[in-house]
């Protein structure tokens, strides 16, 4: 087996898939994603019990492998209760290849703060701490402690894997569930088209309001962008927050093969803007590359199926239009339209 080496003689700037794919044999190694490395950290290994096509475990490996690369392996992870924890650690098995602590559903940011303080007390400031939780553990029950962690500017990168509901306990609504989505607690019934409009929380914006050094959003569909953000986050000391969109085939009622495509459509329709903020100010956005109407994103998911039944059967084009207005607002507010 031989590894084909890159040829630079011609100076061709174009590499077939450029940096859109995970790797690219035509790119020098350092320009390939960390995930392309045969020696990547593989912080989460085979045998875990996440569903087929789970976006959350994929996002976690993406984030943690990048964090391991950035910290040269000096990393401790604190994990809230939720799918990510349940599927990875049925005692005595563990899918983690990183020092890993399970906290409770609601206190991961506080535990992470405590670990950082303990390491500091021991003079191990070179060891970095990463806290992680689902959207329920972050947006709802963990909100208070996350805010405290930010306010104190504790040296923790906190990562929220947002699959837009409480998946582990059977798909209940969270403060990150989008309007009109069907969940176990926002069922679809006559006069009740899923989750309400105008509720929920924008946690990246809340984190930005704390003026912490770094806040960013990312998705499992844009790996280079995600890895660059983890890398960037690790260049700061203090509280940092990363919010990653991780589709859940079970909760979103979509085929397991569609996880990445759905994450891509979420960013390309404008509903999930990708951006970075430093010290409370927006510093960069990832522009939409191939814009699609929200229709295409919503239709691909069973949790929005009721919006597309024909009108007599309760289809709701008016609600699709409201969701489109939401996407349009993001595109306008974040300037996702043209080139940056």
């Amino acid at each position, binding site marked *: *087996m*031989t*590894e*084909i080496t*890159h*040829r630079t*003689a*011609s*100076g*061709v700037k*174009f*590499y*077939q*898939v450029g940096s*859109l*794919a*995970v*790797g*690219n*044999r*035509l790119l020098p190694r350092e320009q390939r*994603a960390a*995930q*392309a490395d045969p020696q990547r950290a593989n912080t989460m*290994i*085979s*045998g*875990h*019990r*996440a*569903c*087929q*096509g789970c976006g959350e*475990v*994929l996002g976690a*490996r993406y984030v943690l492998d990048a964090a391991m690369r950035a910290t040269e392996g000096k990393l401790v992870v604190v994990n809230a209760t939720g799918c990510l924890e*349940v599927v*990875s650690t049925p*005692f*005595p*098995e*563990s899918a983690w290849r990183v020092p890993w602590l399970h906290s409770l559903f609601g206190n991961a940011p506080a535990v992470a703060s405590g670990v950082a303080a303990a390491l500091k007390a021991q003079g191990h400031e070179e060891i970095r701490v990463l806290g992680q939780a689902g959207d329920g553990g972050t947006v709802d029950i963990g909100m208070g402690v996350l805010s405290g962690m930010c306010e104190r500017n504790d040296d923790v990168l906190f990562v929220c894997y947002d699959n837009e509901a409480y998946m*582990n*306990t*059977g*798909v209940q609504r969270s403060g990150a569930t989008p309007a009109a989505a*069907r*969940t*176990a607690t926002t069922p679809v019934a006559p006069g009740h088209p899923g989750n309400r409009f105008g509720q929920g929380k924008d946690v990246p914006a809340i984190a930005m309001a704390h003026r912490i050094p770094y806040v960013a959003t990312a998705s499992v569909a844009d*790996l280079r962008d995600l890895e660059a953000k983890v890398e960037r986050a690790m260049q700061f000391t203090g509280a940092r927050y990363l919010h990653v969109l991780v589709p859940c085939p*079970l*909760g979103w009622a979509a*085929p*397991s*093969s*569609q*996880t*990445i*495509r759905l994450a*891509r459509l979420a960013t390309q329709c404008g509903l999930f803007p990708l951006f970075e903020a430093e010290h409370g100010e927006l510093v960069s956005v990832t522009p939409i590359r191939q814009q699609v109407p929200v229709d295409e994103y919503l239709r691909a998911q069973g949790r929005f199926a009721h919006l597309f039944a024909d009108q007599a059967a309760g289809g709701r084009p008016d609600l699709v239009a409201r969701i489109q207005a939401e996407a349009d607002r993001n595109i306008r507010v974040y300037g996702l339209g043209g080139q940056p």
Partner: protein
Amino acid sequence: MSAHPFATTLDPGSSRANHTGAWRVERPVYAHGLPPCAAACPAGEAVRDWLYTAEDGSYETAWRRLMRDNPLPAVMGRVCYHPCETACNRGQLDQVVGINAVERFLGDEAIRRGWTVPRGAEPTGRRVLVVGSGPAGLSAAYQLALRGHAVTVREAAAKLGGMLRYGIPRYRLPREVLDAEIARIAALGVRFETQSCVDDLDAALREGGFDAAFLGVGAQAGKNAYVPAGDSAHVLDALTVLAAAEDRWPLRLGRRVAIYGGGNTAMDAARTARRLGATDAVVVYRRTRERMPAHESELEEALAEGVSVRWLSTIAHADRGLIAVERMELDESGFPQPTGRFETLEADTLVLALGQSADLGWLAGAAGVGVGDGVIDVDADLATGRPGVYAGGDAVAGPERTATGAIGQGAAAARRIDRYLSAVAGEQRDVPRQQPSAETPVPFGRLNTWYYSDAPAMLRPQLDAARRVDTFAEVVQGLTEHNALYEARRCLSCGNCFGCDNCYGVCPDNAITKLGFDADGQPRYAIDLEYCKGCGLCAAECPAAAIEMVPEPARDEPADRTEHRDAALQDVGP
């Protein structure tokens, strides 16, 4: 471990103990689908595969891959009508890949650097006669020589190449290029005899001691459609004009030349007439531009050089200096119908470009070789009725008469002859019939085009039209190395892995490992079926549709593992 920390009773275990492969109902398999380009190439080139090799700058390896199917890449990189590009999936994304331009680059690079091909086999001691040195004959001779047979090519004309030399003009195919590629075939040990017309096949085979023969005699005779002409009218056949230009015989065409016909030969005759001094070259064609058989690019190049066309016109009568043209109208079925309205056209010479047919009278006496309808009768294997005698190219009926098709048929016939010879020698009795591939090419819709960079095609520069009309210098120029490399990298690699690592990256179960590249430079990955849950993400995110999900084969024994999904995950949810 004997001493456990407080409150711990078990050793930590790895999740690898849990074989999640048991969950699978479908499994991913790496496929090697047929790409549309290769499916469309009449010469059977593995287009995608040599483009892939060229993409990292391995031009010589790419050229060698190409040369397995086509010994004339520099020629075909100029004159092929590239049906591969017409079929190319990238056309549905932005513009097709400039396959033909890359082929030319590789062909020219080979000539420039003097790359040669070694004989692939020990001499077999078998002798094969090839009649005709057009692309069909050259291709057959090359493939037979590679397989160790002693090949003699007999060519009636003074120079080699068939219509590549006596049809296609120099401004499209410089003769140094043609000569260089023929010389490479000669260097394999192929014996060429020019001015050596075969007029008795039996005698030729007997006297030369040949064991087999390939007839690639083309279609040289101009079709004599009846055009009423006065005695003093100056009427020439297009092939005569083209051959005269090639051999530089003096030819009095006059200032005003009318060319009758709408095919590529008409375009070449008109453009040649311009270069030979005609100020007016007018093509007379009975139908419309949309229905013209000439390729659009050839028409455009002709128009740019000042050739004009009279659409919907037939020639009713030709006289000295004057041609009577009747206007036509298309009926509902698109067939031109006379209108009874006539115009006159001043022309010193009328050139007929109404097609060619094969001159096969000499084969009448050859036992077992059937000739019908102006073509040699062959079966699906290109075999004539006589054992060991095969035919291909313009001399046999084909869907379209092109140099590329001739190369493909020459190679196919050579493979048949090779098998025939080994069967005769008792090496292999059974000669399987040739089957056209039943596989459908990978459709555009199966690709995940998100991953491909936006990249508009590179165009080949052209000589200024004003400078072309008084010279036979080559009109279309080649790509620079930079542009050829770029163009190769525009290929989407339809149906085959090109090593983007997406599958390795997107597997949520770490079930895919990277194995590097094999000896052919092909990327290799392995899927660990002990852990693959069959989610299908790798297949969905493969840009090139190189992974297929297939139903899990039934197990011999009942599954001994239970599903490890939490009850909560199974029955709750929307």
